[in-house]
């Protein structure tokens, strides 16, 4: 099997698809490794197989991906679906598991387009079966047309909450309540960012219109909606049976068997931390993101990141960022002259800048609210190892401010998810208890393999020197 390429692209979401298509167009040999069975990432998940009705429900923002998939399918790339990357190295090596076998590819350039994930926020009962993320519900529908047939509560803050509500209302799912946790005052704090956003008024208007339409549809369907909700919790014996919350001093309780939560989207940096590129802290959206230049180049030089993995800007921006990274790698490999690069990159960059205009406003409006990580001592923070907020607070009080140390003492972040689910919360608990900004603390390290690989598989793997081919 071929194992040396000009570039290895990780991820087949909008950024990975655009990046690899761009490189293939320039005659470069690329391998595309992706976890899913079909291209599209989370946003365009299963797009080549969804039915006409699914596409009608999911709307034009979903079907926009069809063109990207078509171009990718026509491009000459080695596409490996169902492939989990468990290690990447700045020297250009990628180790992966495919069909229970591990392998190694090598290339002078890597583009790690790992995309984004929903911000995990612990609350009482969040480990109960039946608590899912809004994005998870959306994925489930895209994969299988499944919808809840028993009462479902949606709770959280951000456009995705309303988008999933829109889909579930159209599908006539029994929604028990929609609980919006966005504080009203964030409308005010976001105001200074509004003028820039209004330069793309059409985009903002589309969002406002969507949310207004969902609220109208919800009222028609007699779905109760609450604003400025806090104190969310799920209760039940072995699964969700009730969802409780507070709304401006009033206690709410709903019978429900599914709770869909959403508290924003953050870059999925697991592989980026493992490869060791430098990260920055964003104080508005409160997440770490890799330091990249306009082309997606990280501190490691030959390692690039494109798409929402660099900073959450949405699907269209991810595609443009992927294109820019593709053009830049093509130039580095001398398949694009400097003048051609400048001209082509300038076009993409202009489109990207336009696309990003509303983001500072949206980021401020849907910033994680101040009390988002006010977690009670008994609440489980590390789902894998069952570590509570109280135990983490005890260590912070003793002076531990490094998640890596906290992990080695109480196993918080040591389970199968390797801190993907508890990382944000641990960082906030450290900030709360020590008064230090996350910027002053160390990020949690990830050790390879960052995806489960059995010892048997590792023993059988031929990971030696790559063959020339």
């Amino acid at each position, binding site marked *: 099997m071929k194992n040396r390429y000009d570039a290895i692209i990780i991820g087949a979401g909008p950024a990975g698809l655009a990046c690899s298509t761009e490189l293939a167009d320039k005659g470069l040999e690329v391998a595309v490794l992706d976890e899913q069975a079909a291209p599209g990432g989370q946003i365009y998940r299963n797009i080549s197989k969804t039915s006409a009705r699914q596409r009608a429900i999911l709307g034009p923002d979903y079907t926009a991906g069809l063109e990207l998939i078509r171009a990718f399918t026509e491009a000459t790339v080695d596409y490996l679906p169902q492939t989990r990357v468990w290690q990447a190295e700045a020297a250009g090596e990628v180790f992966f598991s495919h069909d229970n076998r591990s392998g190694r590819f090598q290339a002078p350039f890597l583009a790690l387009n790992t995309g984004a994930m929903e911000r995990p926020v612990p609350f009482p009962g969040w480990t109960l*079966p039946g608590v899912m993320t809004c994005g998870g519900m959306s994925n489930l529908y895209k994969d299988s047309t499944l919808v809840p047939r028993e009462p479902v509560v949606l709770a959280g803050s951000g456009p995705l909450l309303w988008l999933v509500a829109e889909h579930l209302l159209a599908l006539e799912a029994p929604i028990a309540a929609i609980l919006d946790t966005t504080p009203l005052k964030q409308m005010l704090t976001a105001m200074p960012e509004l003028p820039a956003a209004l330069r793309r008024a059409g985009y903002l208007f589309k969002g406002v219109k969507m949310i207004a339409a969902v609220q109208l549809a919800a009222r028609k369907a007699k779905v109760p909606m609450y604003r400025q909700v806090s104190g969310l919790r799920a209760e039940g014996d072995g*699964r969700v049976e009730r969802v409780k919350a507070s709304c401006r001093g009033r206690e709410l309780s709903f019978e429900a068997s599914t709770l869909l939560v959403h508290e924003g989207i953050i870059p999925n940096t697991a592989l980026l931390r493992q490869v060791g590129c430098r990260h920055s802290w964003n104080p508005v959206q409160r997440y770490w993101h890799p330091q990249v230049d306009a082309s997606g180049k990280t501190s490691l030089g030959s390692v690039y990141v494109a798409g929402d993995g660099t900073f959450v800007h949405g699907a269209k921006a991810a595609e443009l960022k992927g294109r820019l990274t593709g053009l830049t790698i093509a130039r580095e490999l001398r398949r694009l002259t400097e003048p051609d690069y400048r001209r082509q990159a300038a076009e993409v960059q202009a489109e990207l800048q336009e696309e990003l205009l509303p983001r500072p406003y949206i980021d401020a409006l849907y910033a994680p609210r101040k009390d988002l990580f006010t977690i009670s001592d008994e609440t489980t923070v590390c789902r894998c190892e069952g570590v509570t907020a109280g135990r983490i607070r005890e260590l912070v009080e003793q002076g531990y401010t490094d998640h890596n140390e906290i992990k080695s003492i109480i196993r918080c972040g040591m389970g*199968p998810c390797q801190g*993907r689910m508890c990382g944000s919360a641990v960082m906030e608990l450290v900030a709360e208890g020590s008064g230090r900004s996350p910027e002053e603390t160390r990020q949690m390290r990830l050790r390879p393999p960052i995806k*489960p690989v059995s*010892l048997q598989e590792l023993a059988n793997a031929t990971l030696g020197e790559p063959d020339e081919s």
Partner: protein
Amino acid sequence: MNRGNSTFTRSEPLSGDDTITIFFEETACEVPAGVTVAAALLGHDDHHFCRSAADQEKRAPHCLMGVCFECLVEIDGVKNRQACLEPVREGMQVKRQHEPVDESK
């Protein structure tokens, strides 16, 4: 297929040709072809995929995008498979994962 344990339902009908048979805890289940193991099981028995390694609590899919590792199952004898990333195959043997997860460490 017994959907008694699932709180999810298909919003579009499925024709008989589009189903395959997998085995969940040794019971044959007709499931839609081409879906993930997680989607197949959620349409069948949605509240128990595995138990957490530390305290043996029941867990089920949370993120459905490969991040949370709460949908770990044993597939054809191989443990630690993320059900949300694995497509179903005819005759596949799927079991709940109960023992602590050690292989990944």
